């Protein structure tokens, strides 16, 4: 019952905010609509027995990533950030048609086997009793009650630091590379050609070129 109410409140919020993000002419308003959408999805995560994911969604997406977007929008100037003429006029009907086709395809292929009333996930109390029952062969929903028995954070942490340790470490490398890349890309030189000239030819790697290129083009 609770899930029913939360889903039918939050799903229209998520859909509506996504659609209005698409239609907002001002990029800042679009960003704020995306924040609403992220919050709605976070609530749905909580309903889907992924409480830790819901928290991370709010902290990382609505907190960090959207703040980054808004920073860039403010940095570039709000008055320039509007679309200017709105969407592409001629391509828009084709794009909408493609989007509807993709939706029908996805809903018909991915979601269709789980749409009957028997596919509702069992409430936590019911699931705890039937943990020994094998999962339904076709369709059905097992639920995470037995996995989350000691808490969702514990379950996620155990998996993350045992089975997925290697991918976890690789993501840390990815984050460092992304941070350094953003630093290099965001650097601003008064005279970039001097920087390139000062370096010996062997040491002037692709990084120095990447940092200097955009600025060189300003002063040809």
């Amino acid at each position: 019952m609770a899930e029913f109410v939360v889903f039918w409140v939050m799903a229209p919020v998520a859909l509506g905010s996504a659609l209005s993000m698409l239609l907002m002419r001002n990029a800042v308003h679009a960003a704020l609509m995306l924040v609403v959408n992220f919050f709605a999805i976070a609530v749905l995560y909580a309903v889907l027995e992924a409480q830790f994911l819901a928290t991370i969604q709010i902290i990382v997406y609505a907190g960090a990533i959207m703040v980054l977007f808004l920073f860039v929008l403010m940095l570039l100037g709000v008055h320039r950030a509007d679309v200017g003429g709105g969407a592409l006029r001629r391509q828009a009907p084709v794009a909408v048609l493609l989007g509807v086709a993709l939706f029908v395809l996805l809903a018909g292929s991915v979601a269709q086997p789980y749409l009957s009333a028997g596919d509702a996930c069992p409430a936590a109390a019911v699931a705890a009793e039937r943990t020994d029952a094998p999962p339904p062969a076709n369709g059905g929903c097992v639920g995470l009650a037995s996995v989350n028995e000691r808490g969702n954070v514990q379950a996620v942490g155990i998996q993350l630091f045992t089975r997925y340790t290697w991918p976890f470490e690789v993501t840390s490398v990815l984050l460092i590379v992304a941070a350094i890349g953003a630093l290099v890309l965001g650097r601003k030189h008064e005279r970039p050609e001097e920087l390139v000239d000062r370096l010996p030819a062997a040491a002037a790697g692709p990084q120095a070129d990447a940092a200097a290129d955009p600025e060189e083009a300003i002063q040809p």
Partner: protein
Amino acid sequence: MSVPAGYYLVLAAALFSIGLVGVLIRRNLIVMFMCVELMLNSVNLTLTAFARIRGDIDGQILSFFVMVVAAAEVTVGLALIINLFRLRASVSADDVHSLRS
């Protein structure tokens, strides 16, 4: 009064389609980027819904990795957009045609 698990998948499919249409019809690079974020989020929702359907938490773990990659992607992508803005004084995708012959 229950919610079949497929409803979440339908919602995620709708969000993904909206994101795709946004990438196709908007010209502002930042808004296009936000639409990509929306698509990533809808995929995360699908993964989480399937984690619950399967009774297996691996889908949630994969969602975490998607979030990390999305964070890295946003960092680099926005730095690229800032550089492009310095170069062209515009964030419209129509102004990026240096390779056009």
